[in-house]
């Protein structure tokens, strides 16, 4: 089963089990442009799998109104980049509702905002903004890296009673993998994707696969890297990460999103505050994603690059300054 199908299955099961679950967004009726809604309108009808106009602000705002009045909407935004047309609705309306109205209502919606560089799509279709939503009180932020997790975590997100920003990766739709149902993944739980002892490498989303490849290479070169898939960006699994980092005494965070003010800073800063151990981040350059392959590649982090950083860091020969 691929990553798109896994999400589709999770949504179908949720819709079968609970009549309050509906899906809305552009092109969902024809199955979604990535096949992530395939067959759902046929099974559940156009009243529950709702094709909408190109009206991102109202798609998200209407979902808030639906959620407040007894439905559990799953909101399709195609890519996080288009959700920038619905930011007031996510940040001012969905996230703050429960608090601002003193708990009178809840907003159980799942907003699907896929992140990542989408090959050949350039600057306006290639952003990863998980750090933005982690900064906003009231939002849960999830970023699944595998078909299994896309199944399990979407199931958990739909069950969550508060707004979840659910960030699939634009280049993982076709990824194949085993999916065991029913699932047990809970929001807020990271996963040790590979055990190791010399260094803790925290990552999420598509970068997990890059990290696993780099860790494999590192192992062959005698360096044991523990890879943690964060899975939920907020609330992040501080216990698991800090326990691992306290053991390995080195924390590296790698993410595809721009490094500057990225969520890696939160993790690195926390580890430095709490453990006082060496920390390091490998994140995207602060550049828009260019179209030509050479430019796009400059915005990506490859496994060899990551391996190189891992080795420098392990040797204490990273860019730490001499004045230290």
């Amino acid at each position, binding site marked *: 089963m691929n990553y798109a199908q896994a999400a589709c299955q999770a949504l179908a099961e949720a819709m079968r089990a609970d009549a309050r679950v*509906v899906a809305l967004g552009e092109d969902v009726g024809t199955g979604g442009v990535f096949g992530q809604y395939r067959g759902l309108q046929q099974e559940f009808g156009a*009243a*529950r799998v*709702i094709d*909408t*106009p190109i*009206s991102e*602000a*109202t798609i*998200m*705002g*209407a*979902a*808030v*109104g*639906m*959620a*407040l*009045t*007894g*439905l559990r*909407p799953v909101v399709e935004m195609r890519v996080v980049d288009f959700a920038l047309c619905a930011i*007031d*609705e996510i940040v*001012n*309306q969905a996230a703050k*509702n*429960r*608090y*601002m*109205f*003193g*708990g*009178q*209502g809840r907003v159980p919606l799942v907003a699907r905002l896929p992140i990542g560089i989408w090959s050949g799509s350039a600057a306006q279709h290639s952003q990863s903004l998980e750090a933005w939503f982690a900064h906003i*009180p*009231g*939002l*849960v932020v999830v970023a699944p890296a595998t078909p299994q997790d896309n199944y399990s975590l979407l199931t958990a997100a739909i069950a*969550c*009673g*508060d*707004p979840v920003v659910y960030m699939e990766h634009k280049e993982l739709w076709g990824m194949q993998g085993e999916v065991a149902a029913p699932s047990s993944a809970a*929001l*807020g739980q990271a996963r040790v994707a590979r055990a190791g002892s010399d260094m803790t490498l925290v990552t999420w989303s598509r970068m997990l696969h890059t990290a696993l490849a780099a860790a494999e290479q590192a192992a062959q070169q005698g360096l044991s890297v523990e890879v943690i898939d964060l899975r939920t960006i*907020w*609330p992040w699994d501080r216990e698991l990460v800090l326990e691992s980092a306290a053991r390995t005494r080195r924390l590296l965070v790698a993410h595809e999103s721009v490094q500057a003010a990225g969520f890696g800073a939160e993790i690195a800063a926390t580890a430095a505050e709490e453990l006082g151990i060496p920390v390091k981040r490998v994140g995207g350059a602060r550049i828009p994603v260019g179209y030509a392959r050479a430019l796009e590649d400059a915005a990506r982090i490859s496994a060899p690059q990551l391996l190189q950083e891992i080795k420098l860091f392990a040797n204490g020969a990273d860019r730490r300054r001499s004045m230290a």
Partner: protein
Amino acid sequence: MQASTPAANASHGEHLLSLYRTMARIRAFENAAEEASRGSVAAFGATSDAAALVRGPLHLSTGQEAVAAGVCANLARSDYLTSTHRGHGHTLAKGADTTAMMCELFGRAAGSNKGKGGSMHIADFGVGMLGANGVVAAGIPIAVGAAHSAKIRGSRAIVACFFGDGAINRGPFLEGLNWAKIFELPVLFVCEDNRYSATTATDAMTAGEGAAARARGIGLPAETVDGNDVLAVDAAARELVARIRAGGGPQFLHALTYRVKGHVSVDAAAYRDQGEVEQALESDPLKLAGQRLAALGIAAGRIAAADAEARAEIEAAVAAAHAARPPEPAEAYADIQDTGAGQWR
């Protein structure tokens, strides 16, 4: 809509008196809130006074009571309502408790929002009032979603969606009306046109013939009404609500009124002509309704009693708000989100 037989006149008078009561209660509420808000916020040249009882920007609906009263008279408690930053009148008319409302303005734990929202976010979900909103036009998509939800759930609830004349220049106006129409949703859109958007006369910022013409351009039936004439608002709303309940899809009401006060309570509105205000005060909705009541044979004493009762109710609400306790600081960390609640670092 003037009734002609004495019996009809009398029943008409009673109906108008009930609308008048709602308006009088709103007026009293606004006056009390204004009083408690001196120095509430640093803006418009005013400085903020830490001792203000009602803090922050306070948007009064004084002079616009007929719109809230006339529309809400046609809603059931199970119907929904969304509002704007200027939402006290709508909330009260929808049936919210004035003590809980005043406690909210005073930032008390017993407030309708537990002190978390204040004036700009006044709400009472228990009577279907889904919230005032600090963002212009942001209530429109929420209203549309509530109506869509009612339709999906097979509920008979309809939604009244209030917004100002300034809101018709924001994108969600177009998007929300289009959405409501293509899905034939049960929404009554109410443009409460008080001629101002903050310090700016809205007219110069609005192309074309205005709210109703735009609504028609998107395929919605639209009516324009004198928003200071509570009977006219009531009659128009009754007709439109009936059409909605009969499955006629979304309807649009453009109610013409006037913002008697400044944009917020500390705004002296020096940017507009005082003559304009005085002229507008001639058609104050309470004054108009009072004259009409007299004409319909309602005794002056009953009108005065309605005013007195309204004032007494609000004085009691103010006293209760004074006496009520503020929320505990720990309450700041509650009702954020369940997964991650308490994880606030």
